[in-house]
C-alpha cells in the first residue's frame, strides 16, 4: 500500500507500483490538469510538484512518489490564483492551453527558488517544457511579472 499526499489530502494506492503518477492522478483521481504529452519526460506537459520540486509525473512511478507531498495545478493556487497563474492571465499566454499547466508548475517551482531569474536561467529551467503553439515569448514575460509579485 502506497501512501502519499496530493494537494494536501492523504491518498492510498494499492495498484501496480510501477504505474506512473500521471495515470494515477488522471485515471484514478480524476485530476486531469496534468497532461500527457510524451510519456518519456521529454515535453513537460505532466509537470507537478513533489515536495516543492518540479517533476515529470509521466516517468515517476508510484513507488517513488510514496510518502511524498504532491501538488498539481488543481492545488497550486489554494484559496485563489497563484501569482504565476495571474501573470499568465495578464499576458494572455495560452493558445491551445494544453501544455500550460505543466509550464505554470515548472515556472512556479523556479520562482520559488529564484524570483528574479535571468533570461538564461529561464531558458535553462523552462526548456524541458514544450509549447507547440509557440507561446514562449509570453511565458518569459509572465515569469518576470510573477517574479516581481513574489519578490
Amino acid at each position: 500500500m502506497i501512501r502519499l499526499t496530493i494537494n494536501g489530502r492523504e491518498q492510498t494506492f494499492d495498484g501496480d507500483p510501477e504505474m506512473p503518477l500521471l495515470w494515477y492522478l488522471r485515471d484514478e483521481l480524476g485530476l486531469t490538469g496534468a497532461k500527457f504529452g510524451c510519456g518519456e519526460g521529454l515535453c513537460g506537459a505532466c509537470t507537478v510538484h513533489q515536495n516543492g520540486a518540479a517533476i515529470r509525473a509521466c516517468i515517476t512511478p508510484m513507488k517513488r512518489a510514496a510518502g511524498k507531498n504532491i501538488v498539481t495545478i488543481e492545488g497550486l493556487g489554494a484559496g485563489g490564483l497563484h501569482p504565476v497563474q495571474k501573470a499568465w492571465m495578464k499576458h494572455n499566454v495560452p493558445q491551445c492551453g494544453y501544455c500550460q499547466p505543466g509550464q505554470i508548475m515548472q515556472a512556479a517551482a523556479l520562482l520559488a527558488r529564484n524570483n528574479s531569474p535571468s533570461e538564461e536561467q529561464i531558458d535553462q529551467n523552462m526548456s524541458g517544457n514544450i509549447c507547440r503553439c509557440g507561446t514562449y515569448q509570453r511565458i518569459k514575460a509572465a515569469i518576470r511579472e510573477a517574479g516581481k509579485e513574489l519578490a
Partner: protein
Amino acid sequence: MSTFDNVSRRGFLGHLVSAGALVLGARLVSVPAQAAGSAGGLRANDAALHPNLFVGVDTDGTVYIVATRSEMGTGIRTSLPLILADELEADWSRVRIEQAPGDKKYGDQDTDGSHSVRDFYMPMREAGATVRLMLVRAAASTWGVPESECEGRLHEVAHPATGRKLGYGELASAASKLPVPKKEEVRLKPKSAWRYIGKETQPYDLKDFVTGRAGFGIDARLDGMLYASIEHPPVLGGKLKSFDNKAALSVAGVQRTELLDPFKPPHAFQPLGGVAVLASNTWAAMQGRKKLNVQWEDGANAVYNSAPYREELLATAKQPGRLIRNAGNAEAEFAKGGKVFEASYYVPHLAHASMEPPMALANYRDGKVEVWTCTQNPQGAQDTVAQAVGVAPADVTVHVTLLGGGFGRKSKPDYVAEAAFLSKKAGKPVKVVWSREDDIKFDYYHAVAGMYMKAKLGGDGKPVAWLQRSVFPPIQSTFEQNAQYGSAGEMSMGWSDVPYDIPNLRVENGPAPAHVRIGWLRSVSNIYHAFAVGSFADELAHEAGRDPLEYLLDLIGKPRVLDLKAQGVNYHDTPGFPIETARLRHVLEVAAEKAQWGKRKPGNGWGMGIAVHRSFLTYVATVVEVEVDGSGKVTIPRVHYALDAGLIANPERVRSQFEGASVFGTSIALFGEITATNGRIDQSNFNDYVVTRINRAPRETFVYMVESEAPPAGVGEPGVPPFAPALCNAVFAATGKRVRDLPLSRHGFA
C-alpha cells in the same frame, strides 16, 4: 461565476468530472447530465429568446453564443462570438459560450484553411443584429414608442427621449413572441460604434487554461469506460499476419484485446487497422500493448526509403512536368543563352506533433454513438464513425472538446472511428489514447517536396525568364489511390500564384508516389513552395549584386491585380479577394522599416533575411535576424512580421498566432524531418522529432497589422510560409552558406 455556470461549461467542453471530484482528488468520478445522453443539449436552444442557431438570450440576461468551430489555439471560440456580441450590443461579461456538436445545420465546421472569420464574420454580425432588433422592438412595443427612438446598448434597450431602459433579460420573453426580422430589416452597426471587433479581447477560456480546468479530448471521462491503446501496422497498408495476446491479457487491468480490420483503399479517414488492448486505465492498456506479440505482412509500401526517394524527387523535378501556368516563352528565352541560374530545393516530411495526441471517447449503445473528442472536423467525424460502426450519421453525436493543438491533424477523424468501433465491440464506453509514438509514426504527414528553379537574368539583374517545378506526393493520394500530381488547391498555395512580374514565366508540377498517409499541416503546400520561391529570389538578388529587399520589390513590380484565371490557370480563386500586389509591396516595406533593414552590414555571424508570401488571402512579410556562432548554433534575437489580413476581429489573438508562427517556422527550418526506412517511420518522440523549445525560439517576435478596409482573410496559417526562407536567407547573410534543403540541422547548424 456561479457553480452552475462552471458545471455547464465544463460539460460542453467534454470535461466530465464533477466540480467536487476536481477539487481535491475524490475517488468517485461522476458524470454531469450533459454527458449522460442529452445529446447536444445547448442552453442557447432552451433560452427564452432563440431566433437563430448561434445565440440565445435568457430571462436572467445571460446571452449564450454557440461556437461552431473548433478551438485549437487560434482563439476562434472567442473571436467569432465577440463579433456576434458586438452587433447584439451584449455585455461580454454576461456572455456564455457553448460549443456546438457536429451538425450540418451549422454549415461548415471543418476548422482548417484559416477561413473561420472570413466565412462567419457576416453571419455572426447578422445573427447578433437580428436579436438586437427584436429586443428593441419588444421594448418599443412595451413603451408604446416608435422603434426608431430606441436603441440597444450594452445589454439593455434605452429610450433616450424619456430615459427609460429595459434589460435584455427583461425583454427576452416579449421579444421571443415577435416574428424574426427579415434580413433587409436588420441594420448592422457602423464601424465607429464597434465595441469588440478590432479591439483586444482575452481568450474566453483563459482562466480554465491556467487552472487546469479546461477540458481536452484526453480529459473526457465516463463511468465504466475502458482505455484503449492500439498497435497499428508499422507500414501503411500492412496487414496482421499473426498475434498472441496471452501475455497482454495477463497484465493487471487489461480486460480484452480486439482486432481492427485494415482499411480498404483509398485509406482516407479510415482507421489503419491493428490490435487494440483495452484496460481499466491508460497505463495498463499501454503495458498490455507492449506484451502483444504481433507479426505483420508489410505490403507494397515497405519499399519506402527516404534517402533514395529524395534523389528521385529531385531528379523528377529536373524533368519536364505538367504545365500549371505559362506566360511568354521561358524555354525559348533560356535557349538563347545568357546568364542562367538554377537551384534545387528540398523540404522533408513533417509531423504535426500537437501537444495533445489524437484522443477520442466513444459510447456505442443501441445503434447510436456519442463521442467526445478533440476534432477539427466534427461532421467528418460523424460520417467516419457512422461508416465504421454501420449506423447513420444522424445517429452519431460528436461533442467537440478543446483541442490541445491541431495543425490539420485533427481534421482527420481516424482515431474517433477507432473509439466508436471498440466501444461497439466492448459494449462499454472506450477512450482511445494515442501515445506520442503513435502520433509521430502514424501521422498524415506533410508532403516531402523537391523544387527545381531556373532563371535567366536581364541586364538590370531582374529575371527575363523563370521556370519553377515542384514535385511532391499529393494530398489527393489520401483520397484516391495512386494519385501523383498536385491538385489545383495545392498548386494555388504559393506556386501557380507566384506574384512576380516576369515576362516569361513557366510553372510546372511533376509526379510523385505516396507511401505514407499525406495530409495538410499548418499552411500546407505554401511551406515548400514559399521556401523555394523565397530562397531563390534571395539567391538571384545576390547573383545580381542587389539588395534583397529592393530586388523583391522589383520582382513584384508595379501595383496590379494578378488575374490568373485570365491567364488560363486552374486557380482556386476566392471571390472578393483578388491578388493585389500593392498590398504585397506594402507589407514588405513595413516589415523592412520596422526591422531597420539595411542599417547594419551583415556578415561575421550576424545577418537579416527577408521573405514575403501571400497565403490564405493574407499578405505577410517577415524579416528574421540571426546570430550564428562558431559552432553553427543559430540564435534568433528578433523577428518582424508585417501583415495585411483585411479586417481583424481580435488583434490580440492575431498577434499570438504570428508569434506562434515564428516558433512553428523555427521548428520547420531548424529541426523538422520525418524519414522512413523500409516503410517504417524512423522518428518516435520529441527526442528524435525535434520541435522548438524556449531556449531556441525567437527571443522577440514583433507583429505589425496593416490597417485595411478589405474583408477579413486568414491568420492561423499565413505566418508560417515566409519564415523558413527568411531564416535561411538570414543565415546566408550571416555566414555565406546557402542551405537549400531543410532542416538546417542537417548542414552543420544547430
